[in-house]
C-alpha cells in the first residue's frame, strides 16, 4: 500500500504505457493478435491502477497534493521529478487512462489505413504517457517535457493514418493531402506556443529563487513575488502556450484541420484529452502563480472565449463535413471552459473542470460515431448522408443521444459545464469588469442556443429523413461489438455525470476553492 502513496503508483501510471509501447515495438509484426492483446491489457492495467489510486486518494483533503513524491532529476538546474495529484488533476488523470482503454478497444477491429497495428498502438501508448504525465507533473520542466511528448505521436498518427483526400490550401502552389498539411500545422502551432511558454517558465525560475517547483512557485506568486511588466510578459507567453492548445479563438485554426484529418482514434484522444492540457495549464500554473496578472487578463480571456463560442457555433452552421462540424463545436465548448476559468470564481472554475471532463466524454463519443460513420459510408458529407436512423439504427440512436448531451440537455453531462460557466460569468470575481463579463455571458447564452441549433440541424440532416438512393444496395454494417463496448461506457458516464455532478465536484471543489482563496484571498 505504501507503494501507492509514495509516488511509485503515480509513476507507474505514467510510465507503464511507455514501457508497454517499447515492448510492443519488439514484438514481431506478424503477431497482430498478440500486439493488440498486449496493448489492451497494458492500457487496462494502467486504468485499473489509476482507479486504485482513486480509492487511495483522500477526498477529505482534496485540496492537498497527494500520492506524490519529489526526487532530484537535473541537479545543476534544480529541476526535480516532482509529481502528485489533487482534486483538480485527479478526474482528468482518470479520464485520460479511461479514454485510452476505449481507444484501444476501438482500434482492435477498426484500424485506419494503412493498417500496421504495431506502430499505431505503440503511438497511442506513448501519447498516454505524455497525457498522464502532464496531469501529475508538479515541476515546470517536467510539465513541459510531458506537454511536448504528446506532439510526436499525434503528429505521426495524423500524418500516417490520417485522411488522404487531396485538397487545395491557400498559400500552397500544389494540392496537398489533408493529413500532411494538418499534421505539420498542428505541430508548428503547438510548438510555437510552447517555445514561448518555456521562456516564460525560465522567467519564473529566475525571479522565483531558481526553483521550477509549481507548489513553491505558487507560494511565491501568492505572496507577490512576481509583479510589473515582467509578470505581464510571463503571463502573456504562458497564455500563448496554453491558448494554442485549448485552442482559443483566434489561435484555433489548427484544430478543425487536425480533427478532420486525424484517424478516428486520433480525433477522440485529441478532443478528449489533448485540448484539456491547455485549460489544465491555466488552472494549474498560470492562475495560481500569477494571480494578479490573471485578474488583469481575465476580461480579455472572457471576450476571446465569448468570441470563440459564437464563432465556433456559427462556423458549425456553415459546415458540410460532419467531422469538421464536431471539430468547430469543440472550439465552442472549450470557449465555455475558458469563460468559466476567466471568471476566477469557484463556481466558474468548477464549471470549467466538469466542462473539461464532459467535453472529453461527449465529444470523444461524437468523434467515435462520426469516424465510424465515415468508415461505413466512405463520406463525411452531410449532404449525402441522411436517414442514418434507418440505415444504422444503433449508431443513429447513439448519435442522437450524444448530440443531445453535447447541446447541454439538463440531466446529461454537458449541461453543468455550460450552465455553471454562464453563472460564473454573471458574477465574476470582485474587481473584475462586470460589464465585460455579463456581455460575455449573454454571448455565451446566445452560443448555447446556436449550439442547440446546429446540433439539431446536424441530426436532422444525418439521422432523419429518407436515405438517399446511393446507399440502397450497399452493404452497410451497423456498430459491432468492439465499437459498442468502446461507446457504451461513455454513454453511461455521460448520464452518470449528468445526474450526479458531484462525481466531479466532489473531487474538484475543495481544490478549486483552496486554490482561489490562496490566489485572491478570502
Amino acid at each position, binding site marked *: 500500500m505504501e507503494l501507492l502513496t509514495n509516488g511509485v503508483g503515480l509513476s507507474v501510471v505514467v510510465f507503464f504505457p511507455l514501457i508497454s509501447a517499447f515492448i510492443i515495438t519488439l514484438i514481431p509484426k506478424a503477431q497482430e493478435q498478440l500486439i493488440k492483446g498486449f496493448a489492451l491489457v497494458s492500457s487496462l492495467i494502467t486504468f485499473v491502477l489509476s482507479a486504485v489510486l482513486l480509492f487511495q486518494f483522500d477526498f477529505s483533503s482534496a485540496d492537498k497534493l497527494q500520492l506524490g513524491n519529489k526526487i532530484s532529476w*537535473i541537479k545543476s538546474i534544480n529541476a526535480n521529478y516532482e509529481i502528485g495529484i489533487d482534486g483538480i488533476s485527479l478526474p482528468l488523470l482518470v479520464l485520460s487512462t479511461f479514454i485510452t482503454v476505449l481507444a484501444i478497444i476501438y482500434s482492435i477491429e477498426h484500424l485506419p489505413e494503412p493498417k500496421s497495428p504495431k506502430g499505431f498502438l505503440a503511438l497511442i501508448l506513448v501519447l498516454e504517457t505524455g497525457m498522464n504525465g502532464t496531469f501529475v507533473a508538479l515541476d515546470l520542466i517536467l510539465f513541459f517535457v510531458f506537454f511536448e511528448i504528446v506532439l510526436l505521436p499525434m503528429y505521426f498518427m495524423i500524418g500516417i493514418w490520417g485522411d488522404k483526400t487531396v485538397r487545395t490550401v491557400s498559400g500552397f502552389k500544389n494540392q496537398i493531402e489533408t*493529413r500532411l498539411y494538418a499534421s505539420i500545422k498542428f505541430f508548428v502551432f503547438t510548438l510555437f506556443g510552447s517555445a514561448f511558454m518555456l521562456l516564460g517558465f525560465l522567467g519564473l525560475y529566475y525571479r522565483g529563487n531558481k526553483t521550477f517547483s509549481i507548489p513553491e512557485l505558487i507560494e511565491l506568486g501568492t505572496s507577490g513575488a512576481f509583479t510589473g511588466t515582467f509578470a505581464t510578459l510571463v503571463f502573456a507567453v504562458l497564455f500563448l502556450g496554453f491558448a494554442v492548445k485549448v485552442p482559443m479563438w483566434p489561435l484555433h485554426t489548427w484544430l478543425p484541420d487536425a480533427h478532420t484529418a486525424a484517424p478516428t482514434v486520433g480525433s477522440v484522444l485529441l478532443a478528449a484529452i489533448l485540448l484539456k492540457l491547455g485549460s489544465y495549464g491555466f488552472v494549474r500554473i498560470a492562475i495560481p502563480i500569477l494571480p494578479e496578472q490573471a485578474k488583469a487578463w481575465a476580461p480579455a480571456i472572457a471576450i476571446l472565449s465569448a468570441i470563440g463560442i459564437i464563432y465556433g457555433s456559427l462556423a458549425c452552421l456553415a459546415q458540410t463535413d460532419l467531422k469538421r462540424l464536431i471539430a468547430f463545436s469543440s472550439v465552442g465548448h472549450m470557449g465555455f471552459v475558458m469563460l468559466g476559468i476567466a471568471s476566477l470564481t469557484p463556481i466558474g472554475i468548477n464549471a470549467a473542470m466538469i466542462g473539461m471532463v464532459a467535453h472529453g466524454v461527449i465529444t470523444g463519443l461524437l468523434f467515435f460515431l462520426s469516424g465510424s460513420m465515415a468508415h461505413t459510408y466512405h463520406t463525411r458529407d452531410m449532404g449525402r448522408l441522411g436517414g442514418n436512423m434507418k440505415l444504422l439504427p444503433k449508431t443513429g440512436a447513439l448519435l442522437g443521444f450524444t448530440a443531445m448531451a453535447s447541446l447541454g440537455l439538463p440531466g446529461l453531462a454537458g449541461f453543468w459545464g455550460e450552465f455553471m460557466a454562464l453563472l460564473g460569468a454573471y458574477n465574476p470575481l470582485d474587481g473584475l469588469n462586470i460589464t465585460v463579463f455579463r456581455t460575455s455571458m449573454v454571448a455565451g447564452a446566445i452560443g448555447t442556443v446556436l449550439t442547440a441549433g446546429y446540433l439539431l440541424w446536424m441530426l436532422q440532416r444525418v439521422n432523419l429523413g429518407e436515405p438517399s438512393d446511393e446507399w440502397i444496395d450497399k452493404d452497410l454494417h451497423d456498430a459491432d461489438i468492439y465499437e459498442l463496448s468502446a461507446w457504451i461506457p461513455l454513454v453511461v458516464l455521460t448520464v452518470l455525470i449528468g445526474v450526479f455532478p458531484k462525481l466531479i465536484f466532489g473531487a474538484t471543489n475543495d481544490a478549486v476553492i483552496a486554490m482561489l482563496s490562496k490566489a485572491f484571498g478570502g
Partner: protein
Amino acid sequence: MILPRKSKYYVAAFALLGTLFSLAPLVIQWANYTSPIYAFENSFVVDKFSIILKGLFILITYLTFLLSINFIESDKYYQGEYYYLLLSSLLGALIVSSSRDLLTIFIGIELASTPMFLLSGWKKGDRKSNEGAIKFFLLGVLSASLILYGFSLLYGLSGKLVFSEISSHLLSASLANSPVVLLSAILVISGIGFKISVVPFHSWAPDTYEGAPLPVTAYLSVSSKATGFVALIILLTKVFAGSGSSWGIILVIISGLTMTLGNLVALQQNNPVRLLAYSSISQAGFILAPIAISGITGDYQDGIFASVTYLIIYAFMNLGAFLSVHLFSNYAGSTNFYEWGGVARKSPLAGVLTTVFFFSLAGIPPLGGWFAKFVVFRSLLGSANSIGIALGVVGAINAVIALVYYARISKVIWMDEPKSINEEKIFQFENPLKVVGVFTVLITFVSGIFPGIFSYLGEVSSIFFGN
C-alpha cells in the same frame, strides 16, 4: 600505409582499437583528478574541461571510423591514409582542448583542420568533391592567417605567448579595451568563425559538406566544429576575458544572424546533406549564443556550461542524423530526399532512428535536443539583460522554423507514397553502422530523459574558467 593492400582491413581494426585505448588514460586522469596539472611552462594543461572534451573528440572519431569502414571499402579509396589523416585531425583537436598558449593552440587548430582539406577532396574523380575541397582549403587557410595576424598583435602588445601571462598583462596595463586588442579579438573571431561556420563565414560549409565523403562530412560538422568552439571558448575566456562587453555584442549579432539565416536557407533544400549543413550552421548559432551573452554579463561559467552541454548533446545526434542520411541515400540512390517516399517501410529501424535524430535536432522532448536548447535559453534569460532576452526570443522563433524542415524528412520517409521502391533491392544496414546508430540513439534518449548526466559534464567543465 606500409601494409599490403590485402590486409588493409587491419588498418581499420587497428585505428579503432587505438582510439578506444586512448580513452583509458582519460578515465584514469578523471579518476585521479585533484587539480589542474600544468606542463611545459603553463602552455599545456590537463583539467576537467580538457578531459571531457578529449573524451568527446575520441568518441566522435571512433564513431566516424565505424561509419567509414564500409564506405571506404566500397570504393577505391586509399585506406591507410584515410585513417591516418583522421587520427591526425583528432590529435589536433586533443591539443586544442589542452592548450594554454598561442603557439600550441595555433598548431592544434592547424593540425585539426589541415588533414580535413585533403579528406574533403577524397573523392578524387568527383567534381563536386574537388570544388568543395578547394573552397574549404582557401577559406581555411585564410582563416588561419587571420587568426595568426590577431595573435601577432597580441604578442606585440604583451610580449608573451602564454594565455595567463597575456591576460594579466592586458589587465595590468589596462589595455583590455584598447583598439588593438579589439582588432585582434575581431580577427580571431572571424578566423575561428570560418571553422565553426557562422554567418557571414559559412559559405564554404554546404558545398564542402556536399562534396566530401559522408563520414568525413559527419566528422567535419561535429568534430571540426567542436574544435573551433573549444578554441573560441579558450581564447575568449582566457585571453579576451577583459574585453567581453565588446566582443559580446559582435557575437550576439553573429549568433542571431547565424540561427536565422541557416534556418531560412535550410527550409529550401532538397539535398539532405545540404539541409544538414545549413541546420548545423543554425545550430552553431545556438551554441554561440551563451558564450556571446556571457561576454556581456561576464558570467563566463554559465556560458561555458550551456555551450559545452549543447556541444556534447549536439555531437551525437548530428552524427546520427548523418548516419541516417547515409543509409537512405544509399538505398534510394538519390540525393534528393523528396524522392525517398516511404522508404522507412523498407527498414523501420532506420526510419525510427532517422525520426529520433531529426526531431532531437529540432528540440522535441523527450529527445536530447530539447535539453540542449533548454540550457541555452536558460543561460540567455538568466542574463536578465534585454539583449539576452531578445536573443532568446529569436532563438525560440528559430526553434519553431527549424521544426518545419526537420519534420519534413520524417514526413517523406514515413508518410509519402512509395514512388520508386524496388521490392527486390535489399536495404543495406551494415553492422558497424548499426553500432553507431544504437550508440547515438541511446545517448540521444539518455540525454533527453536524464539530462542530469550531461549537464553535470557541462557544469564540471565550466569550472575551468576559474583556474
